[in-house]
């Protein structure tokens, strides 16, 4: 019984981790290459989910809806880049934080106006419904497997692009020294646009994929944004590999902490106080892990190479 619960919870942790990775990868890429801290990255995840609700509802097909939602998320992201972000690249981090904070207020309220404040959802597509039998009596939904698979696939694709293609080479060069890349004749504005568009797509994709299993509501992006920050800080800022490792740690620690902290504490506490302490402790657990990691390695576990 406990082993089966453990397996299920590990899978849940992986699934949270994969969502976090998709968000954190875009965030860390944009920061690494452009030195731009984008708090509005979380609302782009939220927009992905809302757009999926609308387009899946309109087309009646999950795949088509997903594609349309991604395209729309990209368009919105590029529009934001053109109107606001572009003017912030040269500014200091304080200005970037404030301006993107203003955008969060606008977009969180905007989705309330457009879609209403009540939580929405997307039906799980028929071809991914049902559950897989892992062992005797352990069932796990197919859709969640698909989500984990999709996340890992995107991670692999990302690794390929960054490590094995010319664009990836420019990205890595830009992350180390953007001014030098520009001086060597690369159109840095265009490179920034590509990076930004890519990050937006990743966040939108994460949101759209999460829509069938999480409730789609205003503010859903804020929670994941802050978790993504923890992932990035733990993994090392600007590093995709770091984001992947950080994502695994945060996803697993958070999920397992929430499900097993109670039982663990009950070994040496009375049931009511174990419940109270467990609730408090498990909600703080990832932040404590973050504190420990930073205390030992202020640069994160896998800092990006060549950053000063």
């Amino acid at each position: 019984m406990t082993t089966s619960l453990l397996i299920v919870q590990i899978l849940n942790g992986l699934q949270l981790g994969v969502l976090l990775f998709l968000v954190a990868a875009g965030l860390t890429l944009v920061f690494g290459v452009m030195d731009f801290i984008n708090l509005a990255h979380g609302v782009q995840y939220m927009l992905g989910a809302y757009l999926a609700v609308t387009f899946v509802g309109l087309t009646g097909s999950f795949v088509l809806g997903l594609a349309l939602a991604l395209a729309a998320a990209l368009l919105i992201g590029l529009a934001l880049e053109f109107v606001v972000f572009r003017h912030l690249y040269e500014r200091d981090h304080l200005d970037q934080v404030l301006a993107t904070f203003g955008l969060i207020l606008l977009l969180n309220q905007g989705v309330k106006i457009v879609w209403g404040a009540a939580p929405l959802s997307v039906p799980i597509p028929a071809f991914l419904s049902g559950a897989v039998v892992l062992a005797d009596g352990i069932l796990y939904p197919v859709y969640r497997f698909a989500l984990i698979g999709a996340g890992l696939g995107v991670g692999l694709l990302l690794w390929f692009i960054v490590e094995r293609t010319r664009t990836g080479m420019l990205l890595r060069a830009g992350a180390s020294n953007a001014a030098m890349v520009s001086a060597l004749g690369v159109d840095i504005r265009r490179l920034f646009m590509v990076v930004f568009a890519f990050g937006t797509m990743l966040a939108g994709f994460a949101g759209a994929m999460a829509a069938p299993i999480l409730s789609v509501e205003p503010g859903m992006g804020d929670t994941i944004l802050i978790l993504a920050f923890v992932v990035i800080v733990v993994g090392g800022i600007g590093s995709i590999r770091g984001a992947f490792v950080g994502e695994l740690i945060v996803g697993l620690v958070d999920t397992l902490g929430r499900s097993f902290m109670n039982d663990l504490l009950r070994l040496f506490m009375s049931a009511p106080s174990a419940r109270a302490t467990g609730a408090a402790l498990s909600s703080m657990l990832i932040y404590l892990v973050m504190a420990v990691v930073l205390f030992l390695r202020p640069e994160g576990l896998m800092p990006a190479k060549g950053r000063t």
Partner: protein
Amino acid sequence: MSATPAGSLADPAPRRARLTVAVALFGLLAVLPLAVQFGLPSHWLTLATRAMIFAIAALSLDLILGVGGLVSFGHAAFIGIGAYGAGILIAEGQGEALIALPLAIAACALFAAVTGAVSLRTKGVAFIMITLAFGQMAYFLAQALSAYGGDDGLTLQQRSTLAGWDVFADRTHFFYIVLATLAGCHFLIRAIVASRFGRVLRAARENPVRVAVTGYDVDRVRLIAYVISGMIAGVSGFLLANQTEFVSPAFMSWQRSGELIFMVVLGGVGTLHGAIIGAFAFLVAEDVLSGWTEHWKAIFGPLIVLFVLMTRGGIDGLLRRLGGRGDD
């Protein structure tokens, strides 16, 4: 960080000018209850009290953000700890401010010392992210406090008393207590900034390496500033709980931290009196807009974006530019 406008607190002339502005502000506020006697809606007294409470928190943030150059995105946590300090002690039957306030401040100092020691190991963007994460940690902890209301918050059965005197309960008395606290905190932080310690803190913002080479322990100076700042923000939380007679995790939500940063930047980073002006401008704008539409944040958000894109140096810088005194 080059967020600090010209004419820093080191120059004596603007420093005196700023003192004049601050004293004039406090003087104006002091006669507000009189104006209410003569027919100004008493809503303004409540609003001004609330604005002064947030001004205390914004001031404390300005000490580390403006003077120290450390962008802390978790400052609302200290307001929350101060507020919960008042709320929990009142719930446990201890309504005496002379006991509760020092305890609340001590809790803030402890939280600031521990999280600050970890956060200050990083720089720049990582510092922003980590303070944000620690703020969230405090938020979730408050949510998990089921004995004290959890997510729903905690209603205070009474307000705190001062030496057994029921002085917090009267609106005008409370107004003057908050005003006196604000003025006290302002002069305290001014004195800190002008002191040798403040000079080192400022110097470390401009060039930490050089300060370290000169023989100062930069991390220690910053940590002490962070702790002082957290303690003062705790005082504002204590007052806030007494004004609203209610505390909830929402007091330390990360949006609140963002709003505090905006107040400081709105008024002019590193100027101290700017934090007070910023807090008033923010709360009055919030009051007016939210009376106008429930979707006020959809208006307020773009205003923040526009403000950042269009201005430099906040209201203070704008006034100085308009006044033709230039900001080199």
